[in-house]
């Protein structure tokens, strides 16, 4: 199994969710994060004092899927999340050794 970890723009979450549903991915976990990469951040001024806010609000979407679906899911996420501008985000893939469904102790791919 693989874990796909996509860091996307918050306003793209709805579309990514739909893309995943369309791809038949049943489960996902979403976290509020902040990050920066190529994207510069912005300046906020409070009573004349400037702060460069370089960590920008993003959403991390994690899905664990069977090995054979990796490319398909990456594509689904990437095309839903893409605007073509800096800040669109990244996708990282890692290995998952085991999965357990807490409810009934099912293991492995059956648990996804």
């Amino acid at each position, binding site marked *: 199994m693989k874990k796909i970890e996509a860091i996307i723009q918050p306003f793209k979450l709805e579309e990514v969710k739909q893309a995943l549903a369309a791809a038949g991915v049943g489960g996902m976990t979403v976290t509020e994060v902040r990050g920066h990469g190529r994207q510069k951040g912005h300046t*906020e*001024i*409070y*009573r*004349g*004092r400037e*702060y460069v*806010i370089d960590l920008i609000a993003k959403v991390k979407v994690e899905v664990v899927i069977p090995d054979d679906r990796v490319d398909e899911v990456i594509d689904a996420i990437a095309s839903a999340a893409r605007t073509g501008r800096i800040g669109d985000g990244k996708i990282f893939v890692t290995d998952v050794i085991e999965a357990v469904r807490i409810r009934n102790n099912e293991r492995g791919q059956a648990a996804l």
Partner: protein
Amino acid sequence: MLRKAARYPIYIGLLSGCAFPSQMSAASHEAIMDAIRAAELSAHNSWVLISAALVLMMTGPGLALFYGGLVRKKNVLGTMMHSFCLMAVASVLWAVIGYSLAFAEGSPLVGGLKYALLRDVGMEPNPTYAAGLPHLTFMAFQMMFAVITPALISGAFAERMKFSAMLLFMVLWLLVVYSPLAHMVWGSGGLLNAFSGGLIPCLDFAGGTVVHISSGVSALVCALVLGKRLGYPHEPIRPHNLPLSVAGACLLWIGWFGFNAGSALSSGGLAASAFVATQLGAASGALAWMLAEWAHNKKPSTLGAITGAVAGLVAITPAAGFVFPIHGLIIGAAAGLACYLMVAKAKARWGYDDSLDAFGVHGVGGTVGALLTGVFATRAVNAGLVDPSGAALPLGWIDGNAVQLLRQLFGVLVASALAAAGTAILLRLVDWLVGLRVDPEDEIRGLDLALHGEEAYSLES
């Protein structure tokens, strides 16, 4: 309830004593006059009591929210506690001794002990101060000023002062700085009291010197003595919850009607005039700051707009009952601009850390207001200053009394000097007794946990 008999203690007996004579006797005439005076007193009292409540609302929740929203999440309770505890501490101190030191007869510099523990402060008017109000009402109204003034200072040392040191300092400050200054400006025979033969007659309708300059200058000294917050200015120290600050600023604005229009100590035309001046001062202060910021930074900020409104309110305070309301537009705008330049430009250059700009807004705004009062005050609005023949004297520059501007400046200097010296000495003393600043570790954890053992938000589900 059902305290009927007690409700009209003064006039009912008098009225029912008249036997409807076909010729009105002197006694009956007196009875009528007393009845009218009682009605008049009730009318004024209604306004000044609600004004007192409004002034207390400025501190809590007003200032508590305004300041609380501006600090970091880890210090919000510690900051709100400053305002809230001063509602308690200053009130008790005022009743025990502070009111007496400010308003009992004494020297030109400080009052006496006659009214300690509210002795002789009852339902009857005190003719010296507010002949048309119960003495208790005048005392209560003044109490709320003694609550907010130290609370304003607390913005300067937010996020780093020990709670015990804060309490001790504030108790001493109220006794050593505030009460004497209130006596000088408003107390009978006070040094700066224009209406009571003060040596240097200053005009301060609702507390430009007594409240704002004293708190603003003390705040600057606090910021300098306590030093900067860890990480200031290179780390981001942003307001954690601006909606709370907006709500707090609005409540300050609303409460300020009690502060200024209540200072008429009556509910007639003068209160109305001060009310409108207040509104226009606040409005033009907000606009001035907002436009200045828009021009400089390309964006008008919410924090700027609410800070500008407060600056305008500060500046109109000494002037409210002396100037034509429409001049509030000029006074507010001047303060909005001046405070903007101080807070957003000068402060950064000078590098002191006045956490929430208590000096930049109250010290600067109060000074602007005190001086412009010397310009715009006019007997056409307030004929309270009379020569021996009873003719109203000119008040400000536009009344042809340009020298008043110098007197106002003198008042500013006296108030500033007293506040600066008093604060500097008291801080040293408190530092020696209990220490002023929290440990760096506690500062990093935040005052809420370190000093109060609480967290403001526990938003996890």
